């Protein structure tokens, strides 16, 4: 039987965003310095400050709804269902790291072919299609839109 974790989203959002807004409020003096001279413009801290206070108030409202009014929205976290999404997000991160070190085409071929294998695809045609798609996108942007994506390892032939 699949194990279901029931996440109280009001409580979670209240805690996470509340803590975040408090930390950012403490960070304002060091992260948003006041200008050296007065140009007549309002302080650069005002808009971020209003946003953080607003977020903190919303967090407190969510916590009040969850803990006092017992009003909750529950997200059912089933590990078996969530795992593929987390793995795919991780693959996207690896793709980005790969672009930096290997280039768009090598990284794309490696990550997306692995992705096809992960999705259960075993026919060679889909792997050929995937490799072709990576190359097509690279050259489409290079030759049609005049945007050179990072070539990386293949820079000497691109």
């Amino acid at each position, binding site marked *: 039987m699949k194990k279901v974790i029931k996440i109280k989203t009001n409580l979670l959002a209240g805690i996470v965003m509340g803590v975040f807004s408090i930390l950012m409020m403490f960070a304002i003096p060091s992260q948003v310095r006041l200008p050296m001279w007065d140009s007549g*413009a309002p302080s650069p801290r005002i808009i971020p400050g209003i946003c953080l206070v607003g977020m903190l108030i919303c967090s407190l409202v969510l916590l009040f709804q969850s803990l006092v009014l017992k009003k909750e929205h529950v997200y059912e976290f089933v590990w078996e269902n969530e795992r593929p*999404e987390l793995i795919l997000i991780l693959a996207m991160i690896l793709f980005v790291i790969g672009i930096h070190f290997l280039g768009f085409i090598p990284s794309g071929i490696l990550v997306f072919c692995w992705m096809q294998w992960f999705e259960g695809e075993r026919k060679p045609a889909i792997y050929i299609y995937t490799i072709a798609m990576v190359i097509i996108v690279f050259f489409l*942007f290079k030759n049609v839109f005049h945007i050179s994506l990072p070539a990386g390892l293949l820079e000497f032939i691109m």
Partner: protein
Amino acid sequence: MGYFANVGAAFAAVFTPVNLMFIFGGMVMGMIIGCIPGLSVTLGIILFLPLTYGIKDASTAIIALLAVYVGGMYGGSISAITLNTPGTNSAIATTFDGYPLAKKGRVLQALDTSLFASSFGGIVGALLLLLLAAPIAVLVAKFTSVEYFSMAILGISLLAGVSGNSLPKGIMSGLFGILLASVGVDSVTGVARFTFGISILQFGIDMLPAMIALVALKQVVGKLAEYKVKGGDMGDATAIDKRGLSIKEAVSILPTTLLSTMIASFIGAMPGVGGGVAQFLCYNQAKQISKHPEKFGKGSLEGIAAAESSNNAVVGSAMIPLMTMGIPGDGVTALLLGAFILHGMQPGPNMFTKQALQAYTIIVGCLVANLFLWPLGKVLTRLVAKVVQVRYTYLAPAIILFCFAGAFAGTGNFKEIIFCAALLVFSYLLKLMEIDAIPMLLGLILADIMESNFVTAMMSYNRDYLIFFKRPISLIILIITVLLVGSMIRINKKVDALNAKQEEEISKMHEEIDASAANV
């Protein structure tokens, strides 16, 4: 130039080979993306946006994106009818009658009804935009930076109020978007904000990677994960037959189509509502006034017409608040606002004076896209419907590659790709907290406008922070904000309850239809 001269010149500007090519391409792409369950019109627009960077004329770029919007709204009905799964949220009500009619073997008739109603609704919505935009723009032309700031508050509040399932979460999301936009060097004072010593944060977080990660990548990765969980099951699409919609049948659904178009145009023009709400209200209204309400949910042509005319009518009418006041009506128009800004245009009353020809060209382009929907749909629907059955593993890599390449295309800097990946991880956290990303995007898009108007207002009124409550029009806008948010939440709750009840009834009917079909 006067109104008629501008409209005339706009027609001439739209009917160029380049514009027509982009309208055609955008509509085909919209139809394809729209008909794939799980992928929305917003994704289509985001995917197409980087491709418009190379277009010199900004109005052509926006017309191309509007064509994606128009095509996507119709495309959503294709999978709703053939697969019983709406391609977009705005096509949910189309499944109520589209699928039962398809199960009776009348797929083409259902698709033709959808196409006819979509075209009709879309044309009327675009005509309203053409007629009403200029007078409304004149009304709001006297606004100063104080009123513009209040209008930006109105826009974000409305979208925050009606998005997701919780008002505090919606507001929090909108505020977080504004906070994200403040990262980097402040353009007024030159002070760096929240950079934490990280060099790539100096230049701030652009809206394009945020749009791509929070909407497009999130959808595609989620859908790919779902595909894996389901073991690659695509569902069975119903084959398209040959019996279409007769002229007599088209005439019979005309009153319902007209009524739904009118209701949806009115609703769509109200900021913060959009096609999702309009379709249910129109479907319910059509059922109440129909001579055959008993046929609703069992394959009624009127039911399909009500749902489809409403969601396409919203395309034009939702553009009214966007183009005249710079306030997006829903998530799609929020992204379009971002597209306007990326292409160096600022929607609002000034657009009708300073960039009048471009403004009218965009409106006429929207009308022309809707005019083309009928012939294009007739020719391409059968072909596009085949996409519904294409394995998702063929589509996903292409979309993801386009997403990352598109993000990079924004500035040509690798940091955009890093932001994309970081925001994708963040979008997963938002999912766990059930926080909708659309108000965040709107906050990110509107933040610059908000802050620049705030700074101008403060400098003009000697840092009088109460000026927003002292100037009458600004005060009225802020009061309207509170009243509208309250009433919109109530309307949305009622529509959600109505929707849940209707969906329950309809799904029972569909189960019965499926069971009887299996027995035969």
